[in-house]
């Protein structure tokens, strides 16, 4: 198949080859992808985007395989993007996540794609967000993204996913420190996998304790929107942090919407924290409840309007990054390099100072931009 045969219609019709080729075009940033992406734009926005993240070997792929099975049982079409690291030395990669998911390979309602990070830090590949938009527009009801095995700072997934599932396991170390602050804060649903192993209960307790403390301290910013939403629904937006307020006046609709954070038996009835679900991915134990919580989170976001604001925030961030990327490529052009060198010489010769040089550069870039738009 030639790249030029890739069209929005074929992608929309569920043609896996066209979809697969389009994602390859995205990966190598082929400009000819843009026409197809633009044509697909109108059809997006419907899929529930779920991120699965956690340390290496936690069982993310095995869980994803089981989630796909469960969601298929609920009649949903599912796409998976599984990211593994590229070698920084050779650029090559072994993408092995798919091994655990191959039983779905011949199911037409499932599309699985492995992506290498290709030098991108943050736990995902650069192509991930555009690939998600393609799969969304292609009509998959759920798009699951498995990140690389994360350590402490790979949190790009929150910029793409509506719901982030943070997977941990017993035996990572003395305590939950192994997946510290930065990463722990991004979970909307917490999963303790390998619950067949000793110490699972302890991990659950540690995560709950960590979440409670974070909420009490007002530090867990990812949860704040839900507290704000609940407060807004009840008309007491003044208490935006909301973690410790009384919840007695909650109506039934709200209770549904906030099920996933209120149903926790935390011992502190006023606390509303994300759920912690135990699973044994290998046997499928706990998968139903995990999917229920993932879907409850989406329902809560949708019912409160925070699905939209989360997506807005994420898109705003991505637009900013896209713009920064454009500026960077602009700066790599020969004329820009020449301007940069000239300005550098002026600064070295004490002709102008560093900040004047920056201003001059900004002006020069605006001029070329204006020239480009009027040309």
């Amino acid at each position, binding site marked *: *198949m030639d790249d030029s045969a890739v069209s929005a219609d074929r992608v929309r019709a569920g043609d*896996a080859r066209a979809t697969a080729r389009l*994602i*390859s075009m995205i990966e190598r940033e082929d400009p000819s992808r843009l026409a197809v992406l633009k044509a697909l734009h109108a059809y997006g926005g419907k899929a529930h985007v779920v991120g699965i993240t956690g340390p290496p070997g936690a069982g993310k792929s095995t869980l994803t395989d089981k989630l796909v099975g469960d969601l298929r049982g609920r009649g949903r079409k599912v796409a998976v993007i599984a990211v593994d690291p590229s070698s920084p030395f050779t650029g090559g990669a072994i993408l092995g996540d798919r091994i655990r998911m*191959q039983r779905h*390979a011949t199911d037409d309602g499932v599309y699985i794609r492995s992506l290498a990070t290709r030098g991108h830090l943050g736990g995902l590949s650069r192509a991930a967000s555009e690939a998600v938009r393609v799969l969304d527009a292609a009509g998959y009801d759920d798009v699951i993204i498995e990140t690389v095995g994360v350590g402490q700072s790979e949190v790009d997934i929150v910029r793409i996913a509506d719901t982030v599932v943070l997977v941990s396991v017993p035996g990572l170390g003395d305590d939950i420190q192994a997946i510290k602050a930065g990463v722990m804060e991004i979970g909307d649903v917490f999963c303790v996998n390998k619950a067949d192993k000793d110490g699972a209960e302890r991990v659950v307790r540690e995560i709950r304790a960590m979440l409670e403390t974070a909420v009490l301290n007002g530090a867990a910013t990812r949860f704040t929107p839900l507290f704000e939403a609940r407060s807004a629904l009840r008309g007491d937006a003044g208490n935006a942090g909301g973690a410790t307020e009384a919840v007695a006046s909650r109506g039934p609709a709200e209770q549904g919407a906030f099920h996933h954070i209120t149903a926790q038996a935390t011992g502190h009835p006023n606390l509303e924290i994300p759920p912690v679900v135990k699973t044994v991915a290998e046997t499928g134990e706990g998968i139903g409840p995990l999917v229920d919580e993932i879907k409850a989170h989406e329902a809560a976001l949708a019912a409160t309007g925070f699905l939209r604001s989360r997506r807005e925030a994420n898109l705003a961030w991505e637009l900013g990054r896209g713009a920064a990327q454009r500026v960077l490529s602009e700066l790599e052009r020969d004329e820009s390099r020449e301007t940069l060198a000239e300005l550098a010489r002026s600064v070295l010769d004490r002709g102008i100072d560093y900040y004047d040089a920056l201003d001059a550069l900004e002006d020069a870039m605006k001029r070329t931009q204006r020239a480009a738009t009027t040309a």
Partner: protein
Amino acid sequence: MERTIRVLVAKPGLDGHDRGAKVIARALRDAGMEVIYTGLRQTPEQIVSAAVQEDVDVVAMSILSGAHNHLFPRVMELLKEKGVEDVLVIGGGVIPDDDIPGLKGAGIAAVFTPGSPTGDIIEFIKKNLKRKA
């Protein structure tokens, strides 16, 4: 920009010998390729489906059990059925010399038997890609 070569390394059939497949996967990775390894016991249907979804340039299959005369041509047949004609298909493993012409006739571009230097395999792939790199 230079295109990254994507390869599906697959073990068709019930054969549990996976050392060779893993050696090949690592060698191709070290040569800068992206290798999707699908694990053991794959049906031809699964292999072809994965090749399509992953948009690979190469399908590389390893068989040491003796079932190559059935499984390799079956994969070629399914690829043809799906209209996939721009993927290079190669095979390897314990395969008697006498069987190789038949496999090539079925569309397997090359067969690498025990002792094949991985450098030869990498070079063959780079020279015989069906899509322009």
